């Protein structure tokens, strides 16, 4: 009984602790000296700089996602099915980002990409590559978890022993198994791109307006508008989590259907 009460108390304390900054932010963003207002949000959406920042962030994040899909998916698929050394190398490479934090990478990029022929510092060109790099461990884990979870190798061998072609195996089994992993990985890379501040600020000096840069400048100029912007940032994070959970709940359907 005491143990049950204690576990409940721990969960309540945890939930309250998590909700306090979120609720504080939400109230701060709609507070107008005791009255509630949405004018901070209205001001935000009518600001052309915000619209430009939104377009820039979405654009850069989508390019990062495309890069991640094109670069990481083929070796993961091949490595899992045919060459485990390639797969292990991919997993090993993903640890590189853990020892290379954004602030260090920013300093490195500013020096490494300052001279011709790679004079890219000061422009947004480096951003999609940096975001894809930061998303790499999450993308790799998302796709590998899918491949392992559905044990594609067994299905692939079953298709072969039943006389199915390599294309049938790839399209009906392997791709179906990987698709939710690719989706989850893409969502993770996208949300990293939408929220990344350090590299953008350090490599472009804040000259390229993305949502996080807009948030920082906005909060300094007008904390209320900045708070509204932070709520939107949080909304994006919550949206990403729910889409991921939704994709996870549908995870086995594709392969099961194909197998039947």
């Amino acid at each position, binding site marked *: 009984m005491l143990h049950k009460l204690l576990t409940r108390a721990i969960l309540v304390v945890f939930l309250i602790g998590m909700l306090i900054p979120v609720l504080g932010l939400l109230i701060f*963003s709609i507070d107008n000296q005791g009255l509630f207002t949405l004018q901070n949000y209205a001001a935000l959406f009518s600001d052309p700089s915000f619209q430009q920042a939104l377009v820039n962030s979405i654009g850069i994040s989508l390019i990062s996602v495309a890069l991640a899909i094109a670069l990481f998916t083929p070796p993961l698929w091949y490595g899992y099915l045919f060459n485990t050394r390639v797969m292990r190398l991919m997993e090993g490479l993903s640890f590189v980002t853990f020892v290379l934090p954004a602030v260090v990478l920013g300093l490195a990029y500013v020096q490494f990409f300052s001279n011709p022929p790679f004079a890219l510092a000061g422009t947004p060109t480096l951003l999609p590559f940096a975001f894809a790099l930061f998303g790499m461990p999450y993308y790799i884990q998302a796709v590998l978890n899918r491949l392992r979870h559905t044990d594609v190798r067994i299905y692939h061998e079953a298709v072969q022993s039943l006389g199915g072609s390599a294309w049938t195996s790839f399209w009906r089994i392997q791709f179906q198994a990987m698709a939710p992993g690719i989706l989850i990985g893409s969502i993770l890379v996208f*949300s990293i791109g939408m929220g990344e501040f350090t590299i953008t600020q350090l490599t472009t000096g804040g000259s390229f307006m993305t949502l996080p840069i807009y948030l920082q400048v906005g909060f300094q100029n007008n904390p209320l508008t900045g708070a509204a912007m932070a709520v939107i940032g949080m909304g994006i994070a919550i949206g990403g*989590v729910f889409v991921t959970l939704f994709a996870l709940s549908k995870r086995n359907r594709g392969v099961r259907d194909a197998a039947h």
Partner: protein
Amino acid sequence: MHRRVGWLIFIPVFLFVAIFSVGPALGILFASLSGSHGATIANYRQTMTAQYGNAFVMTSSLSLYSSVIATLFGFMVAWSLARVKSQTVQKLLMAVSSTMANFAGLPLAVAFMATLGTSGILTLLVNQLFSVNLTNLGWNLSSFSGLLVAYLSFLTPLSVILLLPAVTSLKKEWEEAVYTLGAPIQTYIRRVALPMLFPSLVSTFALLFANAFSTYVTAYELAGGSVNLVPILIGYMVNGNVSMNLGLGDALSMEEMIVLSLAVLLYLFAQRRSHLHAKGGRAQRAA
């Protein structure tokens, strides 16, 4: 033929990592060892002086405190969550954990300023309801303790996410066996659960420590220059806010990378132990 194709598929990733990660990292290694008169370790010597040495001590302390507290509290939450029967509560708390673990950086810093800053909602509310001025009590968001609270708000949910699979992998039969033998739950936790979960706890601690040590945006926005932290010093280096030379920033970056590498090695070692544990358990059950 197959093998060659496999390695060809790997080449773009290898080039990507080499150009955008390893190359720049090697660049700062060489730059940190270069001076106006050739190779030197002067930059590293300078990082040992009081100001920079103190930054390492401060960053390590903050990371250590926050990761230890987050690991222990995260374990308690994961333990409690695994014992909740309601699927809805479990899903809700997991969604909250996933959201809050992603809610780091700038929005989190803004949320804390809006809630617990000098004119924050909670600060004003406490003042209004209880006539207590948090600032007079010593509360300051731009201090070590302020940063600690902010770090805990994203490290704890991360700890819950990392530890929950390990906690749920504990077999119900083990717990029942302990109770059948007449021992209390404390014995089960001390003699069975904790030894089984120890590698997972260590690997979680290592990952949280690395995360805290490399946190820049939250610390920069909340504390700025008022808390002497390594990532902030490196950030100032790029932004040109202080009179530091590039080589010194490179040396600080290299030292930060060494600390993070040690944390990642600890994580990998603990993960390996955790897998060996699991394999051992499976082998025993099979026997």
